[in-house]
């Protein structure tokens, strides 16, 4: 993915005011890479991700995926939503195959087969016929990820997918996600407001400034490529974490923002 001088200004109909959300963002994600975006809350991280998915229009600049400019949602990108947003009336399998169903290119049995494969990949074998309300939060997020992966996207977009999970499940899911992405060989752009989550997951971390969001710094995470949770206690990890903290602290001047981060 290649974002070039991306800017976005939004008009609020109620207050009749323009709000500059993104300013001149340049960001590349190379094949096989996982890049994380962190930044103070409300800085426009999610808006940027929505723009990459094609759900919102840019004011200026352009975003290319695999060399071609994006223009609305497309099969080369798939989105993993913050609240899992699974359709409660569909079973796990039918939630996972939803995107394929919309495309209507595959015959039913092939769709089902691909759905089953991905369900196994995310570790949910045996739950294909369950309804979402019968699953735990962590399992629902696996379905959410599977629903995106089944599309075999060039770029996976993840919007704080673990924000609603409890602390333990969250840590466990971070490692799981890395395994899943390695197995699926997918490039990913991940948003979080948790700094250690960003560091443990990424090859690079892009730190956004407060609104209007600009790229403050891009940090390369020089840590072994197979990551374990124990890494979080090592000196190198903690060093990067502190550095990012300082960058965000400079941006998050308001005490309520500090509390939230």
């Amino acid at each position: 993915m290649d974002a070039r001088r991306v800017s976005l200004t939004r008009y609020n109909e109620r207050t009749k005011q323009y709000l500059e959300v993104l300013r001149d963002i340049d960001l590349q994600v190379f094949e096989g890479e996982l890049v994380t975006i962190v930044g103070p809350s409300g800085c426009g991280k999610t808006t940027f991700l929505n723009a990459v998915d094609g759900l919102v229009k840019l004011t200026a600049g352009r975003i290319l995926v695999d060399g071609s400019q994006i223009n609305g949602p497309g099969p080369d990108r798939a989105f993993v939503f913050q609240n899992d947003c699974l359709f409660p009336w569909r079973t796990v399998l039918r939630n996972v195959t939803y995107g394929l169903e919309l495309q209507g290119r595959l015959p039913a049995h092939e769709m089902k087969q691909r759905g089953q494969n991905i369900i196994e990949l995310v570790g949910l074998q045996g739950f294909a016929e369950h309804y979402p309300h019968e699953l735990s939060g962590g399992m629902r997020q696996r379905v959410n990820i599977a629903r995106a992966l089944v599309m075999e996207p060039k770029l996976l977009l993840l919007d704080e997918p673990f924000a609603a999970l409890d602390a333990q499940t969250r840590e466990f899911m971070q490692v799981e996600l890395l395994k899943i992405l390695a197995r699926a060989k997918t490039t990913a752009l991940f948003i979080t407001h948790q700094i250690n989550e960003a560091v443990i997951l990424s090859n690079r971390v892009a730190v956004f400034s407060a609104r209007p969001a600009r790229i403050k710094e891009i940090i390369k995470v020089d840590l072994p490529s197979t990551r374990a949770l124990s890494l979080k206690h090592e000196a190198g990890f903690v060093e990067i974490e502190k550095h990012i903290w300082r960058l965000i602290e400079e941006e998050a001047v308001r005490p309520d923002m500090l509390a939230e981060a």
Partner: protein
Amino acid sequence: MNAIPSPSGTSLEVQLPPVISWWKRNENWLLGTIAMLVFLSFWETSVAFKWVNPLFTSAPTRILRAGIEMFADGSIYGHIAISSYEFAVGYGLALVIGVPLGILMGWYSRLNAVLEPFVSALYATPRIALLPLILIWLGIGVSSKIAIVFLGAVFPILVNTITGVRTVEADFIKVARSFGARDRQLFLTVALPSSVPLLLAGLRLGLGHALVGIVVGEMYGANEGLGYLIATAGARFQTDKVMVGIILITSAGVAMTELLRWIERRYERWRPNFRG
């Protein structure tokens, strides 16, 4: 630390006698049934001891006798047939028109803007108040009753369907759009399934209104039907027959409501907190 023995020395899991455990399992409906039986016997007794005049209150056994008589001499079948016919056609029309129109009005906001004032006005009008007008237009035959049943049932169905289609969660729409759903797909895969619960609730509401429509319609202007039976028997102080008519309509209402509940449960297996 030493374990402290409980005072009685028994374990907490006491084995209940079979009668008591059977009662515990069936408590809800047993209590209901017993309450009903107590009520009926009190009713019967108060008539038997002449505490009340059966001319006003009738009595369970007298109602049963009147009912058997009316079925035996065949006088009731015509009334049941005509009321069922009016209900079936009126409610059927309400379904066939209310659901598709509600879907269209929920989906196309322009159409909704055009029709909404009419729907709101008619929904707010007690449809029974239109009965004299309908009788002027359609006479006292079945068509006026079909019309009043239709008008009673169609608005709850329509309004609930509109609301169901319009109140689709924004998150679901975002998911569908992100996966490349076109308008038609968005409607079929998101708006329609998520509006089913409200639609079914609308059908249940409409049912109640339809039954009121039949009874009042037939009381007011008809020469056949259960409502007519109730009205004429009432005019002649035949309380037993009035009660037979009421019980028949009540049973039909309960049966159809249960049928709709059953359908609701089937469609809502996916609901959390669903108790089957």
